[in-house]
């Protein structure tokens, strides 16, 4: 079954510039509204600065975790190699217990 994607999950959708983000407005601008525009741009700048800082922190956390995973993988691979290759249980027949049936001849 295919899940329906929300509008926000579609890749690249956020890159389309909207009327607001492109700075255009259908209403005729008056001189006095420049203060309002300035306020709105400042608010958006603050929001985006915060978002960029959060992404930077997340990126650092991901890089730290990747380093940990890499170190752990190397350690495990070394120990697996030291133990020698394990034979597949179904191919070569490991030691296992059998029920024995004595037969006297």
């Amino acid at each position: 079954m295919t899940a329906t994607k929300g509008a926000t999950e579609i890749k690249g959708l956020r890159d389309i510039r909207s009327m607001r983000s492109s700075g255009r407005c259908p209403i005729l601008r008056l001189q006095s509204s420049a203060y309002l525009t300035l306020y709105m741009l400042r608010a958006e700048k603050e929001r985006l600065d915060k978002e960029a800082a959060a992404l930077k922190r997340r990126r650092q956390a991901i890089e730290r975790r990747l380093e940990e995973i890499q170190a752990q993988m190397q350690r495990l691979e070394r120990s697996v190699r030291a133990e020698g290759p394990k034979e597949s249980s179904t191919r070569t027949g490991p030691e296992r217990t059998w029920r024995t049936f004595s037969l006297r001849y």
Partner: protein
Amino acid sequence: MIEELTTVIKPGPVPDFVETAFVKDLTERALGYIRAGFPVHFRGASGTGKTTLALHVASRLGRQVILIHGDEQYTSTDLVGGEYGYHLRKVVDRFVSRVLKVEENMIRRWVDNRLTVACKYGFTLVYDEFTRSRPEANNILLSILQERVLDLPVGRGGEESYLRVHPDFTALFTSNPEEYAGVHRTQDALRDRMVTMDLDHFDEETEIAITQAKSGLARKEAERIVKVVRAVRASDVCEFGPTIRGAIMIARSLAVLNGHAKGSEDLFRQVCEDIVVSETNRVGTRGNRAKVRELVRTFVRQYSQGDAR
């Protein structure tokens, strides 16, 4: 999903097992052929000790033994394995009370049969009376004995369809060329891959030792029984010569009936007649029975001369 049988045979000699020089020689030769990498086939008439010898050789090899008895109804599936039933798994998930999640999963259950298990784990296969199985059922043995590879059905539990035969795997076969009922001829290709050792009846010394050990009678009495049986066998009057089994039957019956193998005892003569006649006649016509009875009486008298009355 693969399952397999888990019971194997551990053969061992009975306390009174007789190993004379004759038996030792046969055993050592068979072990030599096996060490050289060839399967051994013991061929001989009924009562020549084929199965016992095969089990003895298998016991000397010291590996677990898988025993198969040839049968007309056998197919490759009976030897290799097949699908027997299935596993059904059903999960009902009600973790979120308003959501019902049901997951069903059915897996066919493959079970490896005796031959596959023997090849996989390097056991000793004793295939008794293998000519009772139809030749096409035994075809699977050709690649096992020559290329050391076992062909398996593709759908074997998702596993590979070729199994490399374990280096310790050994096969011992027995067959009776004189049997007429329910047997097939051996394929040339199969016969060519094994060393066939033709077994005749044991030598006199071995037969006496076996009869004595199996019955607990005195050596002299066991000797007398064996002499009667061997004389009937050598006479060529009977349809089938009596075997060592006949001698053991006579000796054990006498032991149970508190009798003795002496010419002075009627019981000895009667038991000999009953058992030898039953062993040597397939149909049991009156004329044949009378002939064998007379022969037994003669030999009992002959070998009992000089008995203390």
